[in-house]
């Protein structure tokens, strides 16, 4: 039995409340004031992406989209329009004639979400509705491959749009094909487990967050469904800035990754903790903050939970290419300074 809440306002508390003692990383915490909890902890969250959508069990993208849009809804006092690229997110939320979205929402083509959002932002400007803000969103396919030209144009013109990419590392609803965000060695329908080096090859793909930083736009960040506090802070910060902004959220896909539906957040966490998915933010072309690794793990801990990497462990011995994946992690850790001596709480 949990007793009824007696919330201690920080100034009333006998000692300065140390948030980390219990529930540091949880969604809410009954011991802290309402405004210190996440948007998701609130009964008043907008549930911009509501029940009844047709995403798979344990979908990381459905989760990431609700996290991000609910935070943006709060930050803009619900004055928000979303433009969606084609992809899982559009297909599972809005099969004609029904929709799970509880905000103005537009869908045009696979490749032009950034351009359509630019148009919506321009329309709001012309209509003198400065309070109405615009988000464009899509998967990694619609962002890093098909929509890339429109995205780069939006960055380059510094249009007043926040573009959110939900990165599940492949084209999932069309049958799990490789995208330019698919990691090396991963099995997809187009990078099968065949030949001397099965799965996706090394030396391909691109980092759109880095490319976004290179556009010198006001704000770029990566985030993960495994750290809600960090994700919401970044979305809210992004909504406080005008101009082109980009956030890329790592969203595990149980279907395409071949993982258990209950492991979605666990996998997102391991991706960060092994160093494969660095979480950082950058302003005007400079990296300003990184999320430190809290409990460092070898990359194997992350790979082993996914069937798309099962061939790396086939027959009980480890594929030597695991060492090359670990090297990518180590390079990220060195590049962004993800590990320091005192750790996150230090």
């Amino acid at each position, binding site marked *: 039995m949990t007793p009824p809440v007696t919330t201690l306002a920080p100034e009333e508390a006998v000692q300065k409340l140390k948030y980390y003692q219990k529930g540091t990383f949880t969604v809410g915490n009954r*011991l802290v004031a309402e405004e210190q909890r996440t948007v998701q902890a609130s009964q008043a969250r907008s549930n911009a992406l509501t029940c009844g959508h047709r*995403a798979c069990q344990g979908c990381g993208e459905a*989760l990431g989209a609700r996290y991000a849009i609910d935070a943006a809804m709060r930050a803009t006092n619900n004055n928000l329009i979303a433009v969606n690229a084609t992809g899982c997110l559009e297909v599972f939320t809005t099969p004609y004639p*029904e929709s799970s979205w509880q905000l103005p929402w537009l869908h045009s083509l696979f490749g032009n979400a950034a351009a359509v959002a630019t148009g919506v932002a321009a329309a709001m400007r012309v209509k003198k509705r400065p309070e109405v803000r615009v988000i464009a969103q899509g998967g990694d396919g619609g962002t890093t491959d098909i929509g890339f030209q429109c995205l780069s144009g939006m960055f380059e013109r510094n249009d007043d749009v926040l573009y959110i990419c939900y990165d599940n590392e492949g084209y999932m609803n069309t049958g799990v094909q490789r995208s330019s965000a698919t990691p090396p060695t991963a099995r997809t329908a187009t990078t099968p487990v065949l030949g001397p080096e099965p799965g996706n090859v090394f030396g391909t793909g691109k980092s759109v967050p880095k490319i976004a930083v290179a556009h010198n736009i006001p704000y770029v960040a990566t985030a993960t469904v495994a750290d809600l506090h960090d994700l919401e802070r970044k979305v809210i910060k992004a909504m406080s800035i005008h101009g082109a902004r980009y956030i890329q959220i790592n969203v595990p896909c149980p279907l395409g990754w071949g993982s258990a539906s209950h492991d979605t957040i666990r996998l997102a966490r391991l991706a960060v903790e092994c160093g494969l998915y660095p979480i950082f933010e950058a302003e005007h072309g400079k990296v300003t903050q990184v999320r430190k690794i809290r409990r460092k793990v070898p990359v194997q801990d992350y790979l082993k939970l996914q069937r798309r990497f099962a061939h790396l462990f086939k027959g009980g011995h480890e594929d030597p290419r695991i060492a090359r994946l670990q090297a990518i992690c180590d390079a990220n850790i060195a590049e962004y300074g993800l590990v320091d001596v005192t750790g996150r709480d230090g």
Partner: protein
Amino acid sequence: MEHPFAITLDAGTSLINHTGSWRTLRPEYVHRLPPCNHACPAGEDIQGWLAYAESGDYEAAWRALTENNPLPAVMGRVCYHPCETACNRAVLDSSVGINSVERFLGDLAIKNGWRFAAPPAATGKKVLVVGAGPSGLSAAYHLARLGHGVTIQEAGPAPGGMMRFGIPKYRLPRDVLDAEVRRIEELGVVFNYNAKVANIAEAMAAGGFDAAFLAVGAHIAKRAYIPAGEAAKVLDAVAVLRSMEGEDKPLLGRKVVIYGGGNTALDVARTAKRLGAEEAVIVYRRTRDRMPAHDFEVEEAIEEGVMMKWLSTIRNVEAGSITVEKMALDDKGFPQPTGEFETLQADSVVLALGQDVDLSLLQGVPGLEVRDGVVQVGPNMMTGVAGIFAGGDMVPSERTVTVAVGHGKKAARHIDAWLRGGTYAPAPKHEIAAADKLNTWYYGEAPKTLRPILETARRTSTFEEVVQGLDEGNALYEARRCLSCGNCFECDNCYGVCPDNAVIKLGPGMGFEFNLDYCKGCGICAQECPCGAIQMIPEAI
């Protein structure tokens, strides 16, 4: 309805899709038994009262605690806290300082004068409790709260039993004990001191009692035959510790030898140091790791200058000296004599070889079974005689204050049921919330707050309390280190992590519900629940 060009259907919401039909596993909120609660000999709901303490509601915490144990300030000093040994937080950093918080709550209750709620209407039944030690006090408390009339007959001049006549003041100040006993007295329990019960059957008949609870403790020191010269000074530990309560302190001399390896031996050695002995030497026939005494007590004694003579037995005591024989452990771990002897200076020798129960009050009661010097009781704490129950050190058990308190509570519940003509069946226990049921990612690093220890120089010369209490700030900190194993603490994780928005938050203090119309059974909520309060169960398909 007129539709625009190329539109044939009305717009609708996805809420019409009841995606719950996809589910093969269903999440369910459960309660699991926290390991601390499971380990507590007094049956406290530790996690329950810590939850109140965490929100700063100390009075509610104290009231929840005293539902099971009326002596928190005593417990917070003398309990060997098996709860902390069992605590899951140890896998993260170190166990929660439950004992410290318990003491803080007990002391705060005394300071603020909190009293127990008045008992309900009297049942008209009378219960005789023999012995005002921890077990008797606990039974009296619970029986009084169930509406029964309770009289305690105590052989000694004051309440507390071994808590007063065995445990030294530097571990348990007497004003603390007195305050907690007074609160039980305020419930209407009648205390008669210097009132030894000579015959239980006669005492029950004379007082018109409907039932009796025997808790006379174990106050007779065990003796061992050791050849001793005429002028040799050989005392027993029980007598030494008891005399510390009187006006005449025991005369132990400058060099004191204590024979035995239990907590009592350490109590005597540390008391001797405080009385001014230059040397206090514990002679024990085995090694430190085989000592029955608790390790922290050995540690504190050594810090205070108590010396240890391992693998030795006393062969002979003379005035001013003793002869010890060195022992060696055989392959079964038993000490065997070596034939090597050594002489030690000793002004006195104190035997701390364990205690026996004075069973004289049971003489002539048919049906009572005594085996190995202790009274045999059933699972309901009743002896072979209907209506006579027993607990504490006089029944087979581990002899600690906390076990005794637990016996008192258990016996009280069975006595109550027996008086009402029924039987008491405890609620079935939940599955234990073992460490593998937790997701410890969500708990931050927060090392344990150690209670300040009196500086050594000061504590060897005075009887001031060695271990000091926490203050309000660090007690709150310590309480908040609790992981709430197996029981929801409303962290909102399930509500947040559901990709299908299928968890309903009912509001503060009311928990959550699953919306099974939309729950697809992915299991993320169960996986990401920090405290293991959700389980996935297969759907009947």
